[in-house]
Every structure is written in structure tokens, then in C-alpha cells.
């Protein structure tokens, strides 16, 4: 089946690697709810764009799903209380980021009642206008749950305006270890299908495709059953990393390639994750904002790996504790998948909307070989799903020649890590690219700053000159007045 479909599929994916899935660790147990932790730490910035604006004060009582941080701009998302209780603190708290730097966070102390806000929902969600659905999705704080965390309402509105034809729901889940989307599709297929139809309606898409990798037969069967007669088509795609990259998924399902530095809307396609579809359905059908998500807890250092329904703001520590604790000291804690996830400095960081997995990996699982010189075998070139030359780019970056790396397409690199994965010399290629991207961003910032400084200095000089002129003018007038007064005296 696998070989057959990949040989005769009309469209083939470029590049890619086949890492060991290790999904069997966590795929069997059904999704469990995480016992409500004593405290929830909700960061104001959990999405791409402007951070949310605080709308509560310390001591406020909040209901589950109540707005605690309002959307902070055109590209932003609100945050809601993940449980009913009291706002215990507002301040800096470590963020789930490799640096572990603090970020503005609201601490909620749950009271254990789990009282929801009064929902405002219509009997038939399809009686709402597409604009209204997009507005409600935005108000529910829904962002891309596949990990990109781009505000979903912005995508819906953009797609409707640019006129898309196809909605692709990404059930690829190509990262090793992660099984949250798989479990979600197995257990909540009907809800996901309804969410897909709502998204398609709001975005004005006629065609609805769901791409699922062929290593998830149970999910495929469940989704097929739920989708029967709804117009939602389930498509099986070969298991390969990075199949879950939206542009790869588009190419495999439609045969169209998204242009470099372009958006999928340009070729009439909108891509959303299956978990996002579920969240949209919860928001539109039940009026429940995004306050929890399914997180895979896995890795050889975890006693009982599985999938947990986690309130936003629960600490990584709470998740590990609910999974039976740690069997051994992990060498690395990762938020997300092992290929593109972020390394966490410690377990004292909250789960955010984009957290798909929490992995506690042993030294045996990660392997820490030391890098050797490049032998120019070009394995990385074959693995790159974008069609770049990782070895050349890394060599230029190493020699501090960033513009040459940009010329080779550094800005198109998606940081998937396929090149680092296959490199026989264990060169940290993707680390070079992430470093170079950060460096380029700070150079751009410095340039903008320099322009702004020049403007400031110019306005100041202008003002100073004006002040001098005004003083001279005033002095002249005073002298003239004095002279006139003296003349008058003389005459008198």
C-alpha cells in the first residue's frame, strides 16, 4: 500500500527524511484530562503578533473561559481564563522558550468549580454569516494549533477576501513521538468534521481535503466514517518528514507549489490543523474559547507516556507528574516534537496554545555525537524539502558571509531539521540557519533604528535652530521697544 501509493500518487513530495516514529510509546492510552493544577500561569503572548492586553487586575474572580487578556492589534489573539477562580498574580514568569526568559503572565488560582461563562450560541451555526464565524473564532482566541500559532481568524478573513477554493486540514503529524492529533482524530472525528465544515463555510472554500499520513490507519478509518456524506474528503499521504509542513501537504494533495516567500492563499488554498478544526467547533457550537488542548507527554524518561487534555497555563511539571513522573533523569526536555520543538531550560514553564508535545528524552534517545568536518556528501541537499543547499549555506554562515547564504535561499529555509538529521558528520546545520536568521533580523532592526535616530537628531537640530532664531527675534523686539520708549521720554 505504502509503496504502491507513493509510486502512483500523482504528486510527489520533494526531499524529506524518515526518522524513527516512536509514536507507539504514547498512542495507545485514550486522552485523559489533566487533574486541575493548583495554579495556572497564562502568558499574554502565546501567538504570532502583538501580545494580548491585560483586562483583569489581581484579586478579580474569573469564570472559565472569561476574557483575561484582550487582542492587542490586527494580528493578535485574546487569552481566556482556563478555569474558574481568582487572579492571584500578574507579572513576569519563565516562558516556554529556549532562553527561559520571563514574559508577562497572569496567574490564575482555580477554585475547583469549573464554572463556565454563559455561552452565546445559535441553534444552527451555519445560520451565522461567514464574517460572524471568523469574528467568533477570533474572539475565542483560536490560533494555529499545529505549532505555528498564527491567529486563525486573520487567516479566515484573508482567505475569504482573496477567494480560496480548497481547504486542507493537516492531519499529517509527521514529527516523531507526537500522537495528539492522531488520538484527537480517533476519538473526536465527528466534532473535527463539523469544525472543518465551519472553517470551509467561513473561508468560502468549496473543496475540503484532510491529509493524514498512512501510519495512522485507525485515525483514517475514524475520520472516513465521520466524513461520510459531508463532502469532506479524507486523503492518505505517505508517512514522511516534514509531511506536516503546510506547503509540502499542499503540493502532495493538489500538485500546486506555493511560490518562495509566498502564502498558500496565493494559489487558492487555506491550511488548518485538525486540532484547530476541533477548537473552532468548540467555539462556534458551544461558545467555549480555547482554554485547553491535547498535549502528548512522551519520551523514554517518562513512566507512563500518553495524551493529556491540558488547561492552558499548566506547568510542564504538572504534566510529568500526571504521567507517573520521571523514570530516569532526562538529558533534554523538549516542547513540541524532537525535530522542530524547543528545548526547555526546566520543567517550571507553562503549557501554551502552541504546545503539541512535552518530551523528556534520555541521552540514548537523542545521542550527542560531536560534529566532524563536512565531507560534501550532499545528503542534506537530498533531504531538504525546500530544495536548498544546506552545506553551502552553513559554510557561508560559518565564514560570517550572511548575504551569500541569503542568496542561496536562507530565507526560504523552514528550519525543519531534516538536514541536521541526515548529516553523517553531525554538523548542526539547522542551528547555523536559526542563528543566521536571528542575526539578519537584528541587522534589519538596527537599520530601522538608525533611520529613526537620524530623524530624531534632525528634528532636534531643527528645533534648536528655531529656538535660537526666536530668541534673537525676541531680543530685537525688546530693543526696538526700549528705543521707542526712550524716544517718547525724550519728546516728553
Amino acid at each position: 500500500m505504502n509503496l504502491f501509493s507513493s509510486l502512483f500518487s500523482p504528486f510527489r513530495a520533494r526531499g524529506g527524511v524518515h526518522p524513527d516514529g516512536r509514536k507507539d510509546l504514547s498512542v495507545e492510552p485514550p486522552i485523559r484530562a489533566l487533574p486541575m493544577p493548583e495554579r495556572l500561569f497564562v502568558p499574554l503572548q502565546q501567538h504570532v503578533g502583538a501580545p494580548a492586553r491585560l483586562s483583569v487586575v489581581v484579586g478579580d474572580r474569573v469564570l472559565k473561559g472569561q476574557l483575561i487578556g484582550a487582542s492587542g492589534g490586527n494580528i493578535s489573539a485574546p487569552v481566556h481564563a482556563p478555569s474558574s477562580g481568582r487572579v492571584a498574580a500578574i507579572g513576569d514568569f519563565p516562558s516556554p522558550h529556549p532562553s527561559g526568559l520571563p514574559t508577562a503572565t497572569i496567574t490564575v488560582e482555580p477554585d475547583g468549580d469549573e464554572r463556565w461563562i454563559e455561552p452565546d450560541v445559535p441553534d444552527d451555526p451555519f445560520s451565522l454569516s461567514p464574517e460572524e464565524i471568523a469574528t467568533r473564532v477570533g474572539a475565542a482566541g483560536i490560533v494555529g494549533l499545529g505549532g505555528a500559532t498564527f491567529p486563525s481568524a486573520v487567516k479566515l478573513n484573508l482567505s475569504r477576501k482573496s477567494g480560496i477554493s480548497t481547504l486542507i486540514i493537516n492531519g499529517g503529524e509527521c514529527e516523531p513521538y507526537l500522537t495528539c492529533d492522531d488520538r484527537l482524530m480517533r476519538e473526536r472525528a465527528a466534532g473535527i468534521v463539523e469544525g472543518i465544515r465551519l472553517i470551509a463555510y467561513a473561508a468560502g472554500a468549496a473543496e475540503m481535503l484532510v491529509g493524514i499520513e498512512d501510519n495512522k490507519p485507525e485515525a483514517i478509518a475514524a475520520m472516513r466514517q465521520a466524513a461520510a456524506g459531508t463532502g469532506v474528503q479524507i486523503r492518505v499521504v505517505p508517512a514522511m518528514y516534514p509531511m506536516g509542513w503546510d506547503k509540502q501537504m499542499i503540493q502532495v494533495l493538489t500538485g500546486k507549489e506555493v511560490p518562495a516567500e509566498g502564502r498558500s492563499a496565493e494559489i487558492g488554498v487555506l491550511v488548518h490543523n485538525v486540532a484547530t478544526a476541533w477548537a473552532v467547533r468548540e467555539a462556534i457550537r458551544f461558545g467555549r474559547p480555547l482554554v485547553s488542548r491535547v498535549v502528548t507527554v512522551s519520551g523514554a524518561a517518562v513512566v507512563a507516556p500518553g495524551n493529556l487534555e491540558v488547561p492552558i497555563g499548566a506547568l510542564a511539571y504538572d504534566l510529568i507528574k500526571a504521567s507517573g513522573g520521571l523514570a530516569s533523569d532526562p538529558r533534554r526536555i523538549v516542547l513540541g516534537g524532537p525535530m522542530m520543538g524547543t528545548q526547555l531550560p526546566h520543567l517550571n514553564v507553562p503549557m501554551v496554545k502552541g504546545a503539541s508535545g512535552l518530551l523528556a528524552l534520555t541521552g540514548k534517545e537523542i545521542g550527542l555525537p560531536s560534529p566532524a568536518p563536512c565531507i560534501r556528501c550532499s545528503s542534506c541537499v537530498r533531504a531538504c524539502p525546500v530544495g536548498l543547499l544546506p552545506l553551502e549555506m552553513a559554510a557561508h554562515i560559518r565564514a560570517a558571509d550572511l548575504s551569500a547564504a541569503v542568496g542561496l535561499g536562507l530565507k526560504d529555509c523552514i528550519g525543519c531539521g531534516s538536514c541536521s538529521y541526515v548529516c553523517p558528520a553531525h554538523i548542526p546545520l539547522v542551528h547555523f540557519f536559526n542563528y543566521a536568521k536571528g542575526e539578519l533580523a537584528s541587522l534589519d532592526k538596527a537599520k530601522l533604528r538608525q533611520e529613526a535616530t537620524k530623524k530624531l537628531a534632525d528634528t532636534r537640530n531643527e528645533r534648536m535652530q528655531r529656538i535660537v532664531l526666536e530668541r534673537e527675534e525676541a531680543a530685537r523686539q525688546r530693543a526696538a521697544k526700549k528705543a521707542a520708549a526712550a524716544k517718547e521720554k525724550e519728546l516728553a
Partner: protein
Amino acid sequence: MFIAIFSLTLLGGSLGLFLGYAARRLKVEGNPLVEEIQAILPGSQCGQCGFPGCAGAAQALAAGEAPVTLCPPGGREVVALLAAKLGVEVNLSEVKDAVPQIAEVQEELCIGCTKCYKACPTDAIMGAAKQIHAVFREACTACGKCVDVCPTEATRLIPVPVTLQSWSWSKPILERAAA
């Protein structure tokens, strides 16, 4: 042989005359290089290079009277750009890449004398008489003028604090694999 000598002399002579005429006729007024160099410099007129503002420094650079490493607030970036513009070889590793800095007013020492905000070339300090002054981080270029004029040593330069927005990955260090 005489024909060859004659024709080449004639050719050289006439071309020389033409070039001499063109050089006079198409002469560019002023030095455009000065303006280009000025565009590279930070433009905050801080005077740390010893020249009266960035325009003076640009003229000295164009005339070859000043080293490309003269601008402390510009850092390594400006040195590299200047070296490329002027065609000068420079060893960047010897240029001390100053950690980006920013001015800070220590509130417990500030007496509200207003000297620093009058000295600031980019209006980055806000304050009024007998009020504690504050620094706009976005506008400060760390030129240090406020530090020089402060009578109570309340202003100082500190490294720019790292935030989630400004954090980025460090350059990977490749160790030589053991032979």
C-alpha cells in the same frame, strides 16, 4: 616601423587629449563619497570620534585622514560597511565589538537638574526641573553625552537588556573531531 611608431603616438596623444578634456568638462562638483559615508554613520552627532559630528567624520574618512574604526557607537557593523565602501582591508576580529549599550537614569541619584536631556542629541531623555528623568530605550544611541554632564553620576550606560523579542540563537561552535 615608423608607421607603427607614428600611428601609436598619434593614437596615444589624441586619446590623452580627449581624456584631459573630458576630465575638465565632466568634473563632478564636491565629493559624492562624503554623502555616501555619512549615510553609513549613525548620524547622532555624538562626537565620540573627535570630529564635529558625523559630517566632519565623513569628510575625514573620505580624505583618508581617519581610520574606519573611528565610530564607537556604530560597532563592528559600521566598520565593515565603511571598509567595504572605502576599499580598506580591516581585521574585524580586532575591532572590539562593544556590547550594545543604553543609558539609564538611577532614580535614587537623579536630582532633576535637566542637564542630561538638554545634552541628548536624539531627545531620548524625558524630564523637567526637579523631576526624575527617564530614558526612552528605543531612541537612545548610547553616545554617553548624558553621562558626561550629569553632576551626580546618576546616568550611566548599561548593556541593553535581553528580552524575548531580541533574543536569538548564538553561533554554533564546531569542535574539531578527535583525530
